[in-house]
């Protein structure tokens, strides 16, 4: 019993750490979906590029970690804006199918260019700071896991303040609610959408850098699975809802570690998709989403 509770607690920490990175990825999906009603398939690739940028800034440029993290987020934000400009903006008035196909194309393109440039081998990403192991209430954790949680929390808090307290956040909410009316109210819609991509991409980059260090591995196809799971987390929380993405990410992370503990690790990746299908079946609006009627 004692041992069972202990194992459970340990899994809970793992779930919390993984879940917080899913949440960071999910935020980008949900924000972009909010303003464009588009599944940004290239989001997983943005996360991957974030991890690579962070790795190169730390190992090649020898930057101190906080600076490298911020710079990786800025560079990746630029990539997100560029992707929006090239692949989505020209299709603002096209059918949803066209934009989705364009998004898929962009994702394949970025991933394979990364494969071309950086090669298929896995690169090691050792944290550029000493990692200590702690025991808190009998549960083991380390600097890296705590830092990941801390980074995720700070980002989410920052995002919350940005969305609720600033003019830009107000513009984002207005565009999400009704793009045309927002434009009539004098909001620069294109700029707001670009900002949304920038913020979502930088959050994904932060997740990429942290996960790169947690697993000590960075590789061009690393974005595929977390990208999909980030989307599942967004749907689970209620797509378009920012608190939903945070909750969805944490719940998905927990569900995964518990699923692995109950079944086996081979099925880890299938759990997320099973959850997705269940949510779509029984609660398509997600945990915190609002029911919407399709507008004509």
């Amino acid at each position, binding site marked *: 019993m004692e041992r069972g509770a202990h194992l459970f607690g340990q899994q809970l920490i793992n779930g919390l750490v993984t879940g917080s990175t899913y949440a960071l990825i999910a935020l980008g999906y949900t924000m972009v979906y909010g303003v464009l009603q588009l599944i940004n398939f290239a989001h997983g690739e943005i996360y991957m590029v974030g991890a690579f940028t962070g790795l190169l800034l730390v190992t090649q440029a020898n930057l101190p970690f906080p600076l490298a993290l911020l710079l990786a987020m800025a560079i990746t934000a630029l990539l997100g804006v560029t992707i929006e400009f090239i692949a989505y903006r020209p299709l603002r008035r096209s059918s949803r199918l066209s934009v989705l196909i364009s998004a898929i*194309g962009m994702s394949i393109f970025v991933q394979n260019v990364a494969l071309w440039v950086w090669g298929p081998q896995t690169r090691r990403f050792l944290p550029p700071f000493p990692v200590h192991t702690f025991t808190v209430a009998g549960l083991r954790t380390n600097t890296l896991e705590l830092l990941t949680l801390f980074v995720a929390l700070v980002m989410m808090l920052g995002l919350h303040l940005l969305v609720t307290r600033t003019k830009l956040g107000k513009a984002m909410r207005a565009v999400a609610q009704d793009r045309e009316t927002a434009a009539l109210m004098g909001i620069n819609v294109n700029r707001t959408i670009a900002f949304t991509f920038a913020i979502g991409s930088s959050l994904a980059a932060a997740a990429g850098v942290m996960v790169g260090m947690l697993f000590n591995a960075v590789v061009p196809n690393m974005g595929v699975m977390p990208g999909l799971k980030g989307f599942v987390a967004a749907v689970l929380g209620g797509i378009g809802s920012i608190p939903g993405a945070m909750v969805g990410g944490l719940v998905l992370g927990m569900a995964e570690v518990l699923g692995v503990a109950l079944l086996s690790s081979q099925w880890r990746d299938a759990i997320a998709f099973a959850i997705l299908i269940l949510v779509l079946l029984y609660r398509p609006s997600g945990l915190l989403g609002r029911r919407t009627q399709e507008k004509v």
Partner: protein
Amino acid sequence: MLDWADGLLRSFINPYYYGVLVTIGINIILALSLNLVTGFTGQLHLGHAAFMAIGAYTAGLLATKAGTGFWAAVLAAGLMAAVAGVIVGLPTLRLRGDYLAIATLGFGEIVRITLLNLDITGGPFGLRGIPRQTNLPIVILAVIFTFLVLRSLVNSRMGRALIAIREDEVAAQTMGIDTTRLKVTSFTVAAFFAGIAGALFAYWFRYLNPSSFGFMVSIELLAMVVFGGLGNLLGSVVGASVMTYLPELLRTVAPAIAERRLVFYGALLVIIMILRPNGLLGTSSEQGWLEIWLARRRSRSPATTSAASGQVPPASTGGAGHGPA
């Protein structure tokens, strides 16, 4: 009869091109069936390779473990894939379009992971020992059969309804079209043909591995359909032929490019969507920048000014919006 035709074909096609033609035929069946879902019904489907995998493994297992004959196994493969199509389609197709993309993608991954972890499929080591019973005449027959069935389907009352769903789902529903039932039907028919293609694949390559049916295979199929033209069956034949043969050709001429072809496929998908979302021969009412630009030029040229002045590009989905905002 089929053996005689096969002998004849083999007598003047060298073995390498014979193999390429079989692969092209299998890809044409896959592209045609994917076009029914994505091109005609307008639902982005990213897991077509999974239906192919289900068909391939059904046929492979029946052939190696149960000793079933070729035709029975091929039919069973199609039916198994169709059943999977209903199971996946029923919950997901009720929802709005974009969820289908992710759900089919997830379904594809679940199928791959399952095949990788089951004992009976040989897991990561794959399934060996399938007899080679696919030949070119059989593939050609299957392609013709698929083409004719799908053509009569899209030209039927049901086909019109599918196109109506693609153009405007809400309007189609208002006109009394049972959109969910039709979407599931189109999905199921497509899955059936993908299963058949998978069986032909199994009986040709004689060895199956889960990695042959990954996400990227679904993407290559999508690229074939988009390149050939969404909503045009002939387009899929052209798209599948070109995009299967081109990498083969490049493999000898420029191996570096053949290996990196996914970079170009990705770029191609984006560029086609912007310039001409209909691909080479597509039929939807959507217009890209290329068509709008051409239409503008045409309407500006003096001879047609008076006639065309009232005919600005139709303000449907793709139209008017691209002007200077």
